[in-house]
């Protein structure tokens, strides 16, 4: 099992969700987040005063999938979340030792 964390543009959330559901991934957790990568935000001007906004609104997805699903899931996210411009986000993958379904104590991949 592996955990995929993807930070994406908020406007791409629906497309990413649809793409994941299409390849059979139904479980996911979504966070509204703020952050920046190398591009460091933008400038806003209110009555002539400039404010640099370096923490931009983002959406973070977390999903835990079976090992053989990882590549397909990552590919689905990349394809559906890409706009080609700065700020498209990042994907992080890490190993998961155990998954437990609270309702019936199921463990391992079956619990996903």
């Amino acid at each position, binding site marked *: 099992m592996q955990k995929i964390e993807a930070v994406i543009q908020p406007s791409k959330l629906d497309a990413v969700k649809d793409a994941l559901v299409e390849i059979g991934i139904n479980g996911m957790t979504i966070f509204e987040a703020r952050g920046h990568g190398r591009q460091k935000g933008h400038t*806003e*001007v*209110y*009555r*002539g*005063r400039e*404010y*640099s906004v370096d923490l931009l609104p983002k959406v973070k997805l977390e999903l835990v999938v079976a090992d053989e699903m990882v590549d397909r899931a990552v590919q689905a996210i990349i394809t559906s979340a890409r706009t080609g411009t700065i700020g498209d986000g990042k994907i992080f993958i890490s190993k998961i030792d155990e998954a437990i379904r609270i309702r019936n104590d199921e463990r391992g991949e079956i619990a996903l």
Partner: protein
Amino acid sequence: MRVAVVKVFLGLLLTMFVAGPLLSGQLAEAQTASQTDRIAALEKQAAANKDAIAAAQTSGDNAWMLVSSALVLMMSGPGLALFYGGLVRKKNVLGTMMQTFAMMAVITVLWAVVLYSLAFGDGNAFIGGFHNIFLRGVGLTPDVYAPTIPSQTFMVYQLMFAIITPALISGAFAERMKFSAMLAFMVLWSLFIYGPMAHMVWGKGGLLNAAMGGRIPCLDFAGGTVVHVTSGVSALVTAIYLGKRLGYPKEPMPPHSVVLSFIGACLLWVGWFGFNAGSALAAGTLATSAFVATHFGAAAAAIGWSGAEWIRQGKVSALGAISGAVAGLVAITPAAGFVTPISAIWIGLIAGVFCYLMVVKVKALFGYDDSLDAFGVHGAGGTLGAVLTGFFANSTINPIFGAGKATGLFEGNGHQVLNQIIGVALAWSISIVGTLIILFVVDKTLGLRVSEDEERDGLDLSQHGEEGYDWAH
């Protein structure tokens, strides 16, 4: 047969010759009698109509003035509260809105008790007296201020101006003044600055009252001097006296919701029709003229500010557009009942660019923290509008100095510009000196500013024990 016909014909002729005059004489007599009756009846009806017309005019004027009063209150209630509320950080949204709302309650009672009397009661050239305290003598019959509406309508209409004027100042000291100090300051300010200024410009025998023969006739249709210059200049004095907000200008303090400000500004624009067109004090042609000028001035100023912004920053911001509209509304206020629609557009355009420069350049140059630009928009826009009124005022719109007599400079009355400048200078002086004294007194008794911790927590929590946005629930 033929003889009979001739006889009848002759008979008819005879009848016509003899009876005709007789008959017509009778008819004429009868007609004369009925004509007299009819004229008498018409005259009677006209007399009755006169009362009916007067009554209709009174009810028409009164209806408009009551609506105008409500419109002006709408400028404070939702209008200014939303406009200012959106411009502060979210921890201060309720505190800022409360500063306006508190005026709606406190100044209303103060007005009834003594302020109306000080502003509009009999007195000297500078201030009214105590004849009308507790609204004594302010009943349902018209008085000298407006011949076709009940004096209570006039009184309540003017009250709405007295509410919004101090509320405008709160934009300068937003996010850092104690609620208690704010209340004390506003009450004293209304008594010692608003009351005298309103009396001088609009009151019976006032020094600057152009309509009632003041010694220095100053044109101020709807309160450029009384409302905007006094509040704007006092705002600047207060901002400087109080000092900057913690972290200003290093810490970013952008508006927390331009959406709220946007709605507020649009409500201000609508309400301003009551403010300016209502100042005709009747539902007549002058009200129309002021209504049109108001609208054109606001629109042109929105374009003026936005244009300046577009050139300097490459983008037109929503906040810029609405700020420009408000600046135009401010500048057209003294001129509204004196200028043509095209003059209104000129005043608006000039005001839009001028106030933009005041807010963006001049404030940065001097470094004072006029949080929401009460001075940059109201003080600067009001001063500019009052002076421009002296240029653009036109006797065809409002023959205030007598039919055909030149009113403004472009009509040949250059002296009026001087009068306007004197009026404005007086308003500046009274506002500066008066506000400093009041601030000093309140500072030494109650203290003006919240503590640093309270300022960091925000006025919502520290002054009112609540929050505008409770994200947890």
